[in-house]
């Protein structure tokens, strides 16, 4: 399940399992002046009918279409632009960080019919900056700057249920890639 968190003091994270949940989490918590961080699945979806690849935020564990944010329903997030009495409910300096695999990887999206990424689509629809990785992420006992592994294979299996636990990008230790930035187009 995706876990976008509105960074409001005292507010618990919002659990989201569908595009409708994401839209509600962003629009029903008042003005978000800090930032939004999403923790959850993202990456490529394959539509076997057209043998096409689609960039998605896989917010829900289920198999229903609306458990994913895709080109076909990302416009529901445009509700943030007017949710604050007609203006954007994400503050002017607010950005969205997607902690998920390859949300920033540009692919030929077979629903959009052009090259894009779900991070770019979310930025376009929210009119706010989005940060996202173009590589996979994995659970680690170390943070990105002190990581000793390149990917999940370098971590204990199973990963222990202890804290702190970090969700960090794949890449050589000491040279982990940061998130890419996306601005509205």
């Amino acid at each position, binding site marked *: 399940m995706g876990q976008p968190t509105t960074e409001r003091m005292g507010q618990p994270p919002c659990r989201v399992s569908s595009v409708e949940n994401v839209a509600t989490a962003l629009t029903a918590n008042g003005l978000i002046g800090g930032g939004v961080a999403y923790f959850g*699945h993202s990456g490529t979806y394959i539509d076997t009918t057209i043998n096409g690849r689609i960039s998605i935020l896989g917010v829900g564990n289920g*198999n229903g279409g609306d458990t*994913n944010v895709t080109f076909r329903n990302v416009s529901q997030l445009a509700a943030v632009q007017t949710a604050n009495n007609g203006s954007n409910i994400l503050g002017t300096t607010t950005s969205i960080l997607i902690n998920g695999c390859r949300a920033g990887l540009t692919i030929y999206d077979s629903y959009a019919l052009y090259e894009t990424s779900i991070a770019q689509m979310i930025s376009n629809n929210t009119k706010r900056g989005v940060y996202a990785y173009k590589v996979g992420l994995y659970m680690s006992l170390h943070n990105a700057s002190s990581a000793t592994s390149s990917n999940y294979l370098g971590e204990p299996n199973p990963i222990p249920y202890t804290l702190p636990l970090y969700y960090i990008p794949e890449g050589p230790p000491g040279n982990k890639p940061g998130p890419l930035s996306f601005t509205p187009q």
Partner: protein
Amino acid sequence: MKRTILVIALFAFGAVDGGVAQCSTGSPSSAREIVQQLWSMATWGDLSSDSGWDKASQSFFTKPNPVPRDKSVAIISNEWGPPSERMLDSDSAEVEVGFRDLGQIDSNLRYIPPKPTDAIKMGKSYHLILVPAYLKMYAADGKTVLQQKPTGCQQWEIQGSLDQPWTTVNTAIRYVLERRNRTQDPKIRQNAEATLSKLLTLH
């Protein structure tokens, strides 16, 4: 007199086509429900039988097609869907169903694993259109259409043809067991045993 005979014939052959008329009260009437019915048939194993294939192909698709010669069956996760619907305009819709591809079983009951993929999810999309519904009267063989006439209603149909039989892992286990028990070919029985072992590890 003619009218009486026609009514009797309709009852005798019990032959209203399986599509869902949009103006019939109490019937499922959305594009989503058509796809749900198709996938329910697949889950029950109907698409891997000739009669089930014919029924699904003729009931739900704009271009019904005969049972494929290739007897392989695609295996998907026990959990799929639910289908989600997106109306494109008043008489066309797109329906998506998510699932996990778990491989195939070929005609010799060999298990073929799925191709490796970096995708985190997958699914199938259907384009459906509203078409005029017909009342069809079939001959005793259940296939030959003797007569059809418009009902004045519309029904959703999936554009195109049924592509390949598929079913869920649990039903696939039964499928392999039944075919294994029907054959005396030791090689196929051996394939079936290996396939069953594999299928029992999947969900």
